[in-house]
């Protein structure tokens, strides 16, 4: 082609809206992509489709009444949200809880961490095209955890189990055999996932070296949770700022090397194994006592403020509460991990193809209920 012809050829970027309805379980997220042929030049995330104004509602509810609302933040890891909020209020009131309640909280939180990571792994495999098989296996395992929670507190997704000062019910009789049986079953299944997915050559080709998140970028964007650990930063609130009884329990923190999507998946798989270890130890060390507490008392903390953070399966969940002495909080702010994790997405997708953005989004493990509150 001579130069007079090439002058007329120009390419332009076109805009695609990966709209709010997604064929994957990340929720309602809208991504505006600027594409140049197959390559992504820029990506803007539009959130807010699931905004339910929880923080404003909290200003008109008592501290106990707000607990069912925290269930619905990260609806997949409901126990961890309950626990974070209740621990923040207890610190505000300077309340001590019984040892048995602490151990039961750790068991519930770690079992829920396993359930949440199962969903993350299942949907990640589905986004990569392993159409439904790993997803069904993960949901089959998660069904067992949910059955255990159904017997403990009566509900399958929004548990509303923690109370200010303890928990709602004591563990029913016979639940520790069920949990022990589940631990044994789950250990063999995690090895199955290793065989099925982790070193599968197609899976490796799709997810290795995709979405590299370097250490300093992760720290600057305040990414937390397994995403941060996959980039090589050994930071876990359960070990670095221990709460409840985590300092008495022995477990490792899996850390990745490169920060690509495969590392993020691998860290989550390892965390399932470590959580099983924690649940086993906590079940063996469960002290006697009464973990329940009477509700109906209206808590009126003295005018002060507090920020407490706990390790959610998706990262660092923080509750900032300002109390002005009345029964209702003056301001409640929720620091959700998925909000910060999502912010790093435009940096990761530059220069990649559309098939890769689906892979990165799946590996970051975003939940819109938490991002939009």
């Amino acid at each position, binding site marked *: 082609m001579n130069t007079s012809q090439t002058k007329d050829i120009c390419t332009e970027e076109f805009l*695609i809206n*990966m709209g709010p309805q997604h064929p994957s379980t990340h929720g309602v997220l809208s991504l505006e992509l600027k594409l140049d042929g197959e390559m992504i030049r820029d990506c803007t995330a539009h959130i807010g489709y699931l905004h339910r104004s929880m923080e404003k509602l909290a200003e008109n509810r008592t501290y106990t009444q707000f607990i069912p609302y925290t269930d619905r933040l990260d609806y997949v890891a409901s126990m961890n949200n309950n626990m974070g909020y209740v621990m923040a209020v207890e610190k505000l009131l300077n309340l001590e809880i019984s040892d048995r309640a602490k151990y039961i909280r750790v068991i519930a939180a770690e079992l829920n961490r396993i359930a949440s990571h199962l969903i993350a792994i299942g949907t990640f*495999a589905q986004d*990569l*095209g*392993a*159409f*439904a*098989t790993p997803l*069904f*296996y993960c949901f*089959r395992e998660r069904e067992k955890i949910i059955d255990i929670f159904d017997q403990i507190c009566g509900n399958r997704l929004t548990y509303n189990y923690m109370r200010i000062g303890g928990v709602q019910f004591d563990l029913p009789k016979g639940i520790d055999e069920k949990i022990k049986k589940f631990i044994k079953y789950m250990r063999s299944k995690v090895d199955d996932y290793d065989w*099925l*997915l982790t070193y*599968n050559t*197609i*899976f490796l*080709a*799709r997810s290795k070296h995709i979405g590299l998140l370097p250490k300093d970028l992760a720290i600057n964007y305040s990414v937390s949770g397994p995403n941060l650990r996959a980039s090589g930063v050994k930071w876990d609130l359960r070990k670095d700022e221990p709460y409840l009884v985590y300092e008495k329990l022995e477990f490792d923190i899996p850390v990745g090397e490169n920060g690509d999507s495969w590392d993020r998946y691998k860290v989550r798989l390892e965390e399932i194994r470590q959580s099983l270890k924690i649940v086993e130890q906590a079940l063996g060390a469960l002290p006697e006592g009464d973990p329940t507490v009477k509700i109906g008392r209206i808590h009126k903390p003295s005018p002060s403020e507090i920020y407490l953070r706990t390790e959610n399966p998706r990262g660092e969940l923080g509750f900032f509460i300002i109390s002005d002495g009345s029964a209702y909080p003056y301001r409640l702010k929720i620091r959700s991990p998925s909000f910060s994790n999502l912010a790093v997405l435009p940096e990761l997708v530059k220069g990649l*193809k*559309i*098939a*890769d953005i*689906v892979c990165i989004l799946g590996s970051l493990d975003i939940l819109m209920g938490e991002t939009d509150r």
Partner: protein
Amino acid sequence: MLMMLIAGIAVLAFISASAMFLIWWERKVSAHIQSRFGPMRVGWHGVLQPIADAVKLLLKEDIRPAEADKLVWWLAPFFAVVPPVMAFAAIPFGKSLIPKDLNVGILYIMAISSVCVIGIFMAGWGSNNKYSLLGGMRSAAQIVSYEIPMILSMITVVMHANSLSMQKIVEAQSRHWNILHPNMLLAALVYTIAATAEVNRAPFDIPEAESELVAGFHTEYSGMKFAMFFIGEYTNLFIIAAISTTLFFGGWHGPFLPPVVWFLSKTYLCIFIWMWVRWTFPRARVDQLMAFAWKVLTPIAFVNLAITGWLLLK
């Protein structure tokens, strides 16, 4: 003349029955791999499910996009269904149960199956939809590139049997099956992978499942036209399983049972393996797929051909 008419009608009846059975079989196999039941309501364990699907698709409204290229859009499903049906003319079901024993049997089948690409391309173009066009082009690139390793692996079998006719290839395996020779085993592996890409099945199902965010080249089709793409896919699956049985697994040879029973059971076992692979692996990305075809499969197929030639000359 009458015999040919009866043979044609018998083959058409077999194709429809087989496609319906495969639709049900796919859903059952995928369900049992995933620890669930699959269709259970319509008939005993859901055997009448394909009939329910067919009735549903017949009752759907046939929508045509306003700006679509009428003739091209309308013809595309035919190009997806007719070539596989035509390829049935040379499949050896039994000792003398072959509609027409062409002396260029395998070449005829390969030539006819290549026409399927045109159908997919016409569907992509005729839909007047940016994403369908890109999906159709990708699919065309995929099918055309994977034809080369497929044909090269078939040529090794043809060299061994000294003939292109399907019956002669089967008869050349009367002592032992072709797959027992190591170079044939390699050819069988290359053929399996290439054939999976030819019929757009996982792990190479980019045109179907994830093509630029929407459904791919058959987005704009509804009702019976979509059913024709669907039936074309399952018929194609049967064809490649039948070819792999004929070329590598001994065709209709087998001890006590009648030959047609052996042929069908071997074919359906091959189909089970294809379905098993589909429900296990994630999908490959487009550039990885093309790189795999040109940089890995084609050299291996060429080397295999050279080795087969050397072994035969010895």
